[in-house]
Protein backbone atom coordinates (compact mmCIF):
# COMPACT_ATOMS: atom_id res chain seq x y z
CA UNK A 1 0.00 0.00 0.00
CA UNK A 2 2.96 2.25 0.54
CA UNK A 3 3.59 1.79 -3.16
CA UNK A 4 0.38 3.59 -4.04
CA UNK A 5 1.48 6.63 -2.09
CA UNK A 6 4.76 6.57 -3.95
CA UNK A 7 2.97 6.39 -7.25
CA UNK A 8 1.56 9.89 -6.93
CA UNK A 9 3.73 12.48 -8.53
CA UNK A 10 3.92 15.03 -5.75
CA UNK A 11 7.35 15.09 -4.15
CA UNK A 12 5.97 15.60 -0.66
CA UNK A 13 4.00 12.35 -0.56
CA UNK A 14 6.85 10.46 -2.17
CA UNK A 15 9.13 11.52 0.63
CA UNK A 16 6.49 10.61 3.18
CA UNK A 17 6.28 7.12 1.73
CA UNK A 18 10.02 6.76 2.02
CA UNK A 19 9.96 7.96 5.61
CA UNK A 20 7.33 5.42 6.60
CA UNK A 21 9.22 2.58 5.04
CA UNK A 22 12.53 3.51 6.50
CA UNK A 23 10.85 3.88 9.86
CA UNK A 24 10.02 0.19 9.82
CA UNK A 25 13.54 -0.63 8.64
CA UNK A 26 14.94 1.36 11.51
CA UNK A 27 12.76 -0.50 13.99
CA UNK A 28 13.91 -3.77 12.47
CA UNK A 29 17.60 -2.88 12.59
CA UNK A 30 17.35 -1.45 16.10
CA UNK A 31 15.64 -4.57 17.34
CA UNK A 32 18.39 -6.69 15.83
CA UNK A 33 21.22 -4.55 17.23
CA UNK A 34 19.68 -4.33 20.70
CA UNK A 35 19.11 -8.05 20.95
CA UNK A 36 22.60 -8.65 19.67
CA UNK A 37 24.06 -6.42 22.38
CA UNK A 38 22.00 -8.12 25.07
CA UNK A 39 23.17 -11.53 23.95
CA UNK A 40 26.81 -10.48 23.79
CA UNK A 41 26.51 -9.17 27.34
CA UNK A 42 24.81 -12.33 28.54
CA UNK A 43 27.44 -14.42 26.81
CA UNK A 44 30.15 -12.49 28.61
CA UNK A 45 28.45 -13.06 31.97
CA UNK A 46 28.22 -16.75 31.20
CA UNK A 47 31.89 -16.86 30.26
CA UNK A 48 32.82 -15.26 33.58
CA UNK A 49 30.64 -17.56 35.64
CA UNK A 50 32.00 -20.59 33.82
CA UNK A 51 35.58 -19.48 34.35
CA UNK A 52 34.88 -19.16 38.05
CA UNK A 53 33.51 -22.69 38.09
CA UNK A 54 36.68 -23.95 36.45
CA UNK A 55 38.80 -22.27 39.14
CA UNK A 56 36.53 -23.69 41.78
CA UNK A 57 36.95 -27.18 40.37
CA UNK A 58 40.72 -26.85 40.31
CA UNK A 59 40.77 -25.48 43.83
CA UNK A 60 38.68 -28.22 45.35
CA UNK A 61 40.12 -31.09 43.34
CA UNK A 62 43.66 -30.08 44.28
CA UNK A 63 42.75 -29.35 47.87
CA UNK A 64 43.71 -31.32 50.93
CA UNK A 65 42.08 -34.63 51.55
CA UNK A 66 39.93 -35.00 54.61
CA UNK A 67 41.13 -37.80 56.92
CA UNK A 68 38.82 -40.51 55.61
CA UNK A 69 38.48 -39.22 52.07
CA UNK A 70 40.15 -40.59 48.96
CA UNK A 71 41.01 -38.86 45.70
CA UNK A 72 37.94 -39.99 43.96
CA UNK A 73 35.63 -38.72 46.66
CA UNK A 74 37.40 -35.37 46.53
CA UNK A 75 36.98 -35.15 42.79
CA UNK A 76 33.32 -36.08 43.07
CA UNK A 77 32.86 -33.48 45.75
CA UNK A 78 34.45 -30.89 43.48
CA UNK A 79 32.18 -31.95 40.64
CA UNK A 80 29.08 -31.64 42.80
CA UNK A 81 29.98 -28.12 43.83
CA UNK A 82 30.77 -27.32 40.21
CA UNK A 83 27.41 -28.64 39.05
CA UNK A 84 25.65 -26.56 41.69
CA UNK A 85 27.41 -23.42 40.54
CA UNK A 86 26.73 -24.19 36.88
CA UNK A 87 23.03 -24.12 37.63
CA UNK A 88 23.38 -20.33 37.70
CA UNK A 89 24.52 -20.48 34.09
CA UNK A 90 21.65 -22.79 33.18
CA UNK A 91 19.32 -20.32 34.83
CA UNK A 92 20.73 -17.55 32.62
CA UNK A 93 20.20 -19.66 29.52
CA UNK A 94 16.62 -20.40 30.50
CA UNK A 95 16.02 -16.66 30.66
CA UNK A 96 17.61 -16.16 27.23
CA UNK A 97 15.22 -18.62 25.67
CA UNK A 98 12.77 -16.05 24.27
CA UNK A 99 15.68 -14.22 22.62
CA UNK A 100 16.75 -17.37 20.83
CA UNK A 101 13.46 -18.88 19.80
CA UNK A 102 12.72 -20.16 16.32
CA UNK A 103 15.01 -18.82 13.63
CA UNK A 104 16.58 -16.35 16.08
CA UNK A 105 19.00 -18.93 17.43
CA UNK A 106 20.96 -19.14 14.20
CA UNK A 107 20.81 -15.42 13.69
CA UNK A 108 22.65 -14.82 16.97
CA UNK A 109 24.61 -18.05 17.15
CA UNK A 110 27.91 -16.25 16.74
CA UNK A 111 27.11 -13.99 19.68
CA UNK A 112 26.30 -16.74 22.15
CA UNK A 113 28.88 -19.21 20.98
CA UNK A 114 31.85 -17.99 23.12
CA UNK A 115 29.91 -18.19 26.39
CA UNK A 116 28.45 -21.52 25.43
CA UNK A 117 31.86 -23.01 24.73
CA UNK A 118 33.16 -21.81 28.07
CA UNK A 119 30.13 -23.32 29.77
CA UNK A 120 30.70 -26.64 28.02
CA UNK A 121 34.34 -26.53 29.08
CA UNK A 122 33.36 -26.07 32.73
CA UNK A 123 30.60 -28.64 32.55
CA UNK A 124 32.79 -31.24 30.87
CA UNK A 125 35.54 -30.65 33.44
CA UNK A 126 33.10 -31.25 36.29
CA UNK A 127 31.84 -34.30 34.42
CA UNK A 128 35.37 -35.63 34.03
CA UNK A 129 36.07 -35.21 37.73
CA UNK A 130 32.80 -36.91 38.50
CA UNK A 131 32.85 -39.83 36.08
CA UNK A 132 36.26 -39.84 34.42
CA UNK A 133 34.63 -39.76 30.99
CA UNK A 134 33.83 -37.29 28.26
CA UNK A 135 30.40 -35.76 28.59
CA UNK A 136 28.18 -36.70 25.66
CA UNK A 137 26.35 -34.32 23.34
CA UNK A 138 22.98 -35.36 24.75
CA UNK A 139 24.15 -34.88 28.32
CA UNK A 140 25.16 -31.30 27.52
CA UNK A 141 21.91 -30.58 25.72
CA UNK A 142 20.02 -32.03 28.67
CA UNK A 143 21.49 -29.41 31.00
CA UNK A 144 20.10 -26.78 28.60
CA UNK A 145 16.60 -28.16 28.67
CA UNK A 146 13.73 -27.23 30.94
CA UNK A 147 12.00 -29.78 33.23
CA UNK A 148 9.32 -30.34 30.58
CA UNK A 149 12.02 -31.46 28.17
CA UNK A 150 11.95 -28.41 25.92
CA UNK A 151 15.39 -27.21 24.84
CA UNK A 152 16.34 -23.61 25.54
CA UNK A 153 17.98 -23.68 22.14
CA UNK A 154 19.45 -26.38 19.92
CA UNK A 155 23.03 -27.18 20.87
CA UNK A 156 25.34 -27.33 17.88
CA UNK A 157 27.98 -29.96 17.27
CA UNK A 158 30.55 -27.28 16.64
CA UNK A 159 30.04 -25.56 20.01
CA UNK A 160 30.05 -28.94 21.69
CA UNK A 161 33.33 -30.00 20.09
CA UNK A 162 35.01 -26.64 20.57
CA UNK A 163 33.99 -26.57 24.23
CA UNK A 164 35.42 -30.03 24.74
CA UNK A 165 38.56 -29.02 22.93
CA UNK A 166 39.18 -26.41 25.62
CA UNK A 167 38.76 -29.06 28.28
CA UNK A 168 42.12 -30.58 27.41
CA UNK A 169 43.91 -27.42 28.57
CA UNK A 170 42.18 -27.57 31.94
CA UNK A 171 43.01 -31.23 32.30
CA UNK A 172 46.65 -30.49 31.62
CA UNK A 173 46.67 -27.96 34.45
CA UNK A 174 44.82 -30.37 36.64
CA UNK A 175 47.32 -33.15 35.95
CA UNK A 176 50.46 -31.09 36.34
CA UNK A 177 49.53 -29.11 39.42
CA UNK A 178 48.42 -32.33 41.07
CA UNK A 179 51.42 -34.38 40.09
CA UNK A 180 53.20 -33.95 43.42
CA UNK A 181 50.14 -34.94 45.43
CA UNK A 182 49.40 -38.39 46.67
CA UNK A 183 48.29 -40.44 43.68
CA UNK A 184 49.06 -37.52 41.42
CA UNK A 185 51.19 -39.52 39.05
CA UNK A 186 48.48 -42.08 38.48
CA UNK A 187 46.02 -39.24 37.91
CA UNK A 188 48.40 -37.60 35.47
CA UNK A 189 48.67 -40.85 33.56
CA UNK A 190 44.90 -41.16 33.34
CA UNK A 191 44.60 -37.61 32.14
CA UNK A 192 47.36 -38.19 29.64
CA UNK A 193 45.59 -41.19 28.13
CA UNK A 194 42.30 -39.35 28.15
CA UNK A 195 43.63 -36.25 26.42
CA UNK A 196 45.43 -38.40 23.88
CA UNK A 197 42.12 -40.09 23.12
CA UNK A 198 40.37 -36.73 22.69
CA UNK A 199 43.04 -35.48 20.35
CA UNK A 200 42.81 -38.60 18.22
CA UNK A 201 39.00 -38.43 18.06
CA UNK A 202 38.91 -34.76 17.19
CA UNK A 203 41.48 -35.01 14.42
CA UNK A 204 39.03 -36.11 11.77
CA UNK A 205 36.63 -33.22 12.45
CA UNK A 206 39.09 -30.47 11.68
CA UNK A 207 37.75 -29.92 8.14
CA UNK A 208 34.17 -29.79 9.42
CA UNK A 209 34.44 -27.37 12.30
CA UNK A 210 35.96 -23.96 11.87
CA UNK A 211 38.41 -22.97 14.64
CA UNK A 212 38.96 -26.60 15.60
CA UNK A 213 42.33 -26.63 13.90
CA UNK A 214 43.64 -23.90 16.18
CA UNK A 215 42.25 -25.58 19.25
CA UNK A 216 43.70 -28.91 18.23
CA UNK A 217 47.17 -27.42 18.18
CA UNK A 218 46.60 -26.08 21.71
CA UNK A 219 45.51 -29.57 22.69
CA UNK A 220 48.73 -30.96 21.22
CA UNK A 221 50.75 -28.53 23.33
CA UNK A 222 48.83 -29.46 26.46
CA UNK A 223 49.33 -33.11 25.74
CA UNK A 224 53.04 -32.61 25.29
CA UNK A 225 53.29 -30.82 28.62
CA UNK A 226 51.61 -33.71 30.37
CA UNK A 227 53.80 -36.21 28.56
CA UNK A 228 56.94 -34.33 29.55
CA UNK A 229 55.83 -34.22 33.15
CA UNK A 230 55.07 -37.93 33.10
CA UNK A 231 58.47 -38.59 31.57
CA UNK A 232 60.30 -36.54 34.22
CA UNK A 233 58.51 -38.36 36.98
CA UNK A 234 59.29 -41.73 35.42
CA UNK A 235 62.98 -40.97 35.09
CA UNK A 236 63.30 -39.65 38.60
CA UNK A 237 61.37 -42.43 40.32
CA UNK A 238 63.66 -44.93 38.64
CA UNK A 239 66.47 -43.53 40.72
CA UNK A 240 64.80 -44.87 43.85
CA UNK A 241 63.88 -48.43 44.38
CA UNK A 242 60.67 -47.68 46.18
CA UNK A 243 57.02 -48.49 45.63
CA UNK A 244 54.83 -45.65 44.29
CA UNK A 245 53.01 -45.46 47.63
CA UNK A 246 56.23 -44.89 49.52
CA UNK A 247 57.32 -42.22 47.07
CA UNK A 248 53.96 -40.55 47.55
CA UNK A 249 54.52 -40.56 51.27
CA UNK A 250 57.95 -38.97 51.00
CA UNK A 251 56.66 -36.21 48.73
CA UNK A 252 53.54 -35.68 50.81
CA UNK A 253 55.58 -35.41 53.98
CA UNK A 254 57.88 -32.75 52.67
CA UNK A 255 54.93 -30.84 51.26
CA UNK A 256 52.98 -30.94 54.49
CA UNK A 257 55.94 -29.87 56.59
CA UNK A 258 56.38 -26.95 54.23
CA UNK A 259 52.69 -26.18 54.38
CA UNK A 260 52.63 -26.02 58.14
CA UNK A 261 55.02 -23.14 58.10
CA UNK A 262 53.48 -21.16 55.28
CA UNK A 263 50.05 -22.58 54.67
CA UNK A 264 48.17 -19.40 53.94
CA UNK A 265 50.71 -17.97 51.57
CA UNK A 266 50.78 -21.17 49.58
CA UNK A 267 47.00 -21.39 49.44
CA UNK A 268 46.63 -17.93 48.04
CA UNK A 269 49.58 -18.32 45.73
CA UNK A 270 48.08 -21.25 43.96
CA UNK A 271 44.86 -19.47 43.17
CA UNK A 272 46.80 -16.63 41.62
CA UNK A 273 48.89 -18.96 39.54
CA UNK A 274 45.82 -20.47 38.01
CA UNK A 275 44.31 -17.20 37.01
CA UNK A 276 47.55 -16.00 35.48
CA UNK A 277 47.70 -19.13 33.48
CA UNK A 278 44.18 -18.59 32.25
CA UNK A 279 44.92 -15.07 31.09
CA UNK A 280 47.91 -16.05 29.06
CA UNK A 281 46.10 -18.79 27.21
CA UNK A 282 43.27 -16.50 26.18
Amino acid at each position, binding site marked *: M*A*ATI*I*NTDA*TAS*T*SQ*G*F*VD*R*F*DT*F*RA*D*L*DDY*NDRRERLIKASRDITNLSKKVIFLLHRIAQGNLEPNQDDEALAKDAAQQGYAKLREVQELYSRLRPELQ*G*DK*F*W*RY*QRQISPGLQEYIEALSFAHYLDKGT*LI*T*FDEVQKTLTDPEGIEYFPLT*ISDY*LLGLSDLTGELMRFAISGIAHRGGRRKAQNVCAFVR*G*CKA*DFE*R*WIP*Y*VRELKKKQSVTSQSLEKIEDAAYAIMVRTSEYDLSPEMLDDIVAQSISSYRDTSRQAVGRGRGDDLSDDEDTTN
Partner: protein
Amino acid sequence: MDPIELERINVVLDHDVELREKIKEQVNELDKKMRTIVGILNKIHSTRPEAMPALLDSVKPVLNSCQAVTSALVLIIPKNQFWRWKDMWSNSIRTAAFAAVLIEYLSNRTLLSLEKVSDTLGVRSEWSDRLSLPVEDYLHALITVVNELSRLAVNAVTLGNFEEPLKISAFVKDLFTGFSMLNLKNDTLRRRFDGLKYDIKKIEEVVYDVSLRNLTNISVEK
Protein backbone atom coordinates in the same frame (compact mmCIF):
# COMPACT_ATOMS: atom_id res chain seq x y z
CA MET B 1 34.98 -40.98 23.03
CA ASP B 2 32.39 -43.67 22.88
CA PRO B 3 32.18 -45.20 19.34
CA ILE B 4 28.43 -44.72 19.09
CA GLU B 5 28.74 -41.07 20.04
CA LEU B 6 31.61 -40.70 17.59
CA GLU B 7 29.55 -42.14 14.79
CA ARG B 8 26.63 -39.93 15.64
CA ILE B 9 28.71 -36.79 15.37
CA ASN B 10 30.12 -38.01 12.08
CA VAL B 11 26.65 -38.51 10.71
CA VAL B 12 25.53 -35.01 11.71
CA LEU B 13 28.64 -33.38 10.30
CA ASP B 14 28.46 -35.33 7.04
CA HIS B 15 24.84 -34.36 6.72
CA ASP B 16 25.77 -30.68 7.09
CA VAL B 17 28.36 -31.01 4.36
CA GLU B 18 25.79 -32.58 2.08
CA LEU B 19 23.37 -29.78 2.81
CA ARG B 20 26.01 -27.20 2.05
CA GLU B 21 26.70 -28.81 -1.30
CA LYS B 22 23.04 -28.87 -2.22
CA ILE B 23 22.70 -25.19 -1.34
CA LYS B 24 25.84 -24.38 -3.28
CA GLU B 25 24.33 -26.01 -6.34
CA GLN B 26 21.30 -23.71 -6.18
CA VAL B 27 23.41 -20.66 -5.48
CA ASN B 28 25.52 -21.43 -8.54
CA GLU B 29 22.33 -21.58 -10.55
CA LEU B 30 21.26 -18.23 -9.13
CA ASP B 31 24.65 -16.71 -9.86
CA LYS B 32 24.43 -17.78 -13.47
CA LYS B 33 21.14 -15.94 -13.81
CA MET B 34 22.59 -12.92 -12.04
CA ARG B 35 25.45 -12.67 -14.51
CA THR B 36 22.96 -12.69 -17.38
CA ILE B 37 20.85 -10.03 -15.71
CA VAL B 38 23.73 -7.76 -14.81
CA GLY B 39 25.03 -8.16 -18.34
CA ILE B 40 21.78 -6.99 -19.86
CA LEU B 41 21.31 -4.20 -17.33
CA ASN B 42 24.70 -2.81 -18.26
CA LYS B 43 23.13 -1.72 -21.49
CA ILE B 44 20.90 0.87 -19.79
CA HIS B 45 23.85 3.21 -20.04
CA SER B 46 23.74 3.10 -23.80
CA THR B 47 20.01 2.84 -24.35
CA ARG B 48 17.81 5.74 -25.36
CA PRO B 49 14.59 6.33 -23.38
CA GLU B 50 12.37 5.02 -26.17
CA ALA B 51 14.24 1.72 -26.29
CA MET B 52 14.44 1.35 -22.51
CA PRO B 53 11.12 -0.47 -21.94
CA ALA B 54 12.08 -3.18 -24.42
CA LEU B 55 15.45 -3.62 -22.76
CA LEU B 56 13.91 -3.87 -19.30
CA ASP B 57 11.31 -6.31 -20.54
CA SER B 58 14.05 -8.58 -21.77
CA VAL B 59 15.44 -8.86 -18.21
CA LYS B 60 12.15 -9.67 -16.56
CA PRO B 61 11.86 -13.31 -17.69
CA VAL B 62 15.33 -14.07 -16.33
CA LEU B 63 14.55 -12.32 -13.07
CA ASN B 64 11.29 -14.20 -12.74
CA SER B 65 13.09 -17.47 -13.32
CA CYS B 66 14.82 -16.89 -9.95
CA GLN B 67 11.59 -18.11 -8.42
CA ALA B 68 12.53 -21.62 -9.48
CA VAL B 69 15.75 -21.32 -7.51
CA THR B 70 14.17 -19.86 -4.39
CA SER B 71 11.49 -22.51 -4.31
CA ALA B 72 14.15 -25.20 -4.66
CA LEU B 73 16.28 -23.55 -2.00
CA VAL B 74 13.50 -23.40 0.54
CA LEU B 75 13.03 -27.16 0.31
CA ILE B 76 16.67 -27.72 1.21
CA ILE B 77 16.94 -25.38 4.20
CA PRO B 78 15.88 -27.05 7.45
CA LYS B 79 13.32 -25.36 9.66
CA ASN B 80 14.63 -22.37 11.60
CA GLN B 81 18.00 -22.47 9.88
CA PHE B 82 17.66 -19.51 7.54
CA TRP B 83 20.37 -17.47 9.28
CA ARG B 84 22.72 -20.40 9.42
CA TRP B 85 23.07 -20.63 5.65
CA LYS B 86 22.06 -17.23 4.32
CA ASP B 87 25.63 -15.99 3.92
CA MET B 88 25.99 -18.47 1.11
CA TRP B 89 23.53 -16.62 -1.12
CA SER B 90 23.46 -13.10 0.34
CA ASN B 91 25.44 -11.66 -2.52
CA SER B 92 23.34 -13.29 -5.22
CA ILE B 93 20.06 -12.33 -3.61
CA ARG B 94 21.25 -8.74 -3.20
CA THR B 95 22.02 -8.62 -6.89
CA ALA B 96 18.58 -9.97 -7.68
CA ALA B 97 16.98 -7.37 -5.43
CA PHE B 98 19.10 -4.69 -7.07
CA ALA B 99 17.88 -5.74 -10.50
CA ALA B 100 14.26 -5.78 -9.39
CA VAL B 101 14.48 -2.31 -7.82
CA LEU B 102 16.36 -0.82 -10.76
CA ILE B 103 13.94 -2.19 -13.33
CA GLU B 104 10.99 -0.87 -11.35
CA TYR B 105 12.57 2.54 -11.00
CA LEU B 106 13.38 2.85 -14.69
CA SER B 107 9.94 1.60 -15.67
CA ASN B 108 7.71 3.47 -13.24
CA ARG B 109 10.00 5.84 -11.33
CA THR B 110 8.97 4.33 -8.01
CA LEU B 111 10.78 2.50 -5.26
CA LEU B 112 9.93 -1.19 -5.25
CA SER B 113 9.15 -2.16 -1.67
CA LEU B 114 10.84 -4.97 0.21
CA GLU B 115 7.64 -7.00 0.01
CA LYS B 116 7.38 -6.50 -3.73
CA VAL B 117 11.00 -7.53 -4.21
CA SER B 118 10.30 -10.68 -2.23
CA ASP B 119 7.28 -11.35 -4.45
CA THR B 120 9.34 -10.86 -7.58
CA LEU B 121 11.89 -13.38 -6.36
CA GLY B 122 9.14 -15.75 -5.28
CA VAL B 123 10.13 -15.59 -1.62
CA ARG B 124 7.00 -16.16 0.44
CA SER B 125 6.48 -14.69 3.87
CA GLU B 126 5.49 -18.05 5.36
CA TRP B 127 8.99 -19.33 4.62
CA SER B 128 10.58 -16.75 6.89
CA ASP B 129 12.40 -19.24 9.13
CA ARG B 130 13.96 -20.91 6.08
CA LEU B 131 14.16 -18.30 3.37
CA SER B 132 13.45 -14.60 3.39
CA LEU B 133 14.80 -11.31 2.16
CA PRO B 134 16.14 -9.51 5.23
CA VAL B 135 16.03 -5.73 5.50
CA GLU B 136 19.82 -5.63 5.43
CA ASP B 137 20.02 -7.29 2.02
CA TYR B 138 17.32 -5.01 0.64
CA LEU B 139 19.20 -1.94 1.87
CA HIS B 140 22.39 -3.20 0.27
CA ALA B 141 20.49 -3.57 -2.98
CA LEU B 142 19.22 0.01 -2.72
CA ILE B 143 22.73 1.33 -2.33
CA THR B 144 23.83 -0.63 -5.39
CA VAL B 145 20.94 0.98 -7.26
CA VAL B 146 22.17 4.43 -6.27
CA ASN B 147 25.69 3.54 -7.39
CA GLU B 148 24.27 2.51 -10.73
CA LEU B 149 22.02 5.56 -11.08
CA SER B 150 24.88 7.97 -10.51
CA ARG B 151 26.55 6.42 -13.52
CA LEU B 152 23.33 6.55 -15.47
CA ALA B 153 22.94 10.27 -14.74
CA VAL B 154 26.21 10.89 -16.54
CA ASN B 155 25.59 8.53 -19.42
CA ALA B 156 22.03 9.69 -20.02
CA VAL B 157 23.32 13.19 -20.63
CA THR B 158 25.85 11.83 -23.08
CA LEU B 159 22.97 10.27 -24.97
CA GLY B 160 21.15 13.60 -25.00
CA ASN B 161 18.65 12.75 -22.28
CA PHE B 162 18.91 15.83 -20.08
CA GLU B 163 15.92 15.15 -17.87
CA GLU B 164 17.15 11.86 -16.51
CA PRO B 165 19.64 13.39 -14.03
CA LEU B 166 16.91 15.54 -12.50
CA LYS B 167 14.65 12.56 -11.91
CA ILE B 168 17.49 10.52 -10.55
CA SER B 169 18.55 13.33 -8.27
CA ALA B 170 15.12 13.62 -6.65
CA PHE B 171 14.85 9.87 -6.17
CA VAL B 172 18.32 9.43 -4.75
CA LYS B 173 17.87 12.32 -2.34
CA ASP B 174 14.74 10.69 -0.99
CA LEU B 175 16.62 7.45 -0.56
CA PHE B 176 19.44 9.23 1.19
CA THR B 177 16.99 10.86 3.60
CA GLY B 178 15.61 7.42 4.30
CA PHE B 179 19.03 5.96 4.99
CA SER B 180 19.83 8.87 7.29
CA MET B 181 17.00 7.74 9.55
CA LEU B 182 18.66 4.42 10.28
CA ASN B 183 20.93 3.71 13.20
CA LEU B 184 23.62 1.82 11.37
CA LYS B 185 26.37 0.15 13.28
CA ASN B 186 29.89 -0.15 11.98
CA ASP B 187 29.42 -2.75 9.31
CA THR B 188 29.57 -2.93 5.53
CA LEU B 189 26.14 -1.38 5.21
CA ARG B 190 27.36 1.61 7.17
CA ARG B 191 30.46 1.95 5.03
CA ARG B 192 28.47 1.74 1.85
CA PHE B 193 26.01 4.31 3.18
CA ASP B 194 28.93 6.61 3.91
CA GLY B 195 29.94 6.21 0.29
CA LEU B 196 26.52 7.35 -0.94
CA LYS B 197 27.48 11.00 -0.64
CA TYR B 198 29.94 10.63 -3.49
CA ASP B 199 27.21 9.30 -5.73
CA ILE B 200 24.99 12.18 -4.73
CA LYS B 201 27.76 14.65 -5.40
CA LYS B 202 28.30 13.18 -8.83
CA ILE B 203 24.60 13.36 -9.65
CA GLU B 204 24.36 16.94 -8.41
CA GLU B 205 27.27 17.98 -10.56
CA VAL B 206 25.49 16.58 -13.57
CA VAL B 207 22.28 18.36 -12.58
CA TYR B 208 24.27 21.55 -12.15
CA ASP B 209 25.90 21.26 -15.56
CA VAL B 210 22.62 20.53 -17.26
CA SER B 211 20.59 23.27 -15.62
CA LEU B 212 23.32 25.87 -15.93
CA ARG B 213 23.31 25.43 -19.67
CA ASN B 214 19.54 25.53 -19.75
CA LEU B 215 19.43 22.11 -21.35
CA THR B 216 16.23 21.24 -19.58
CA ASN B 217 12.98 23.08 -19.08
CA ILE B 218 11.96 21.29 -15.90
CA SER B 219 12.64 23.60 -13.00
CA VAL B 220 14.71 22.11 -10.23
CA GLU B 221 13.01 22.30 -6.88
CA LYS B 222 15.43 23.26 -4.20
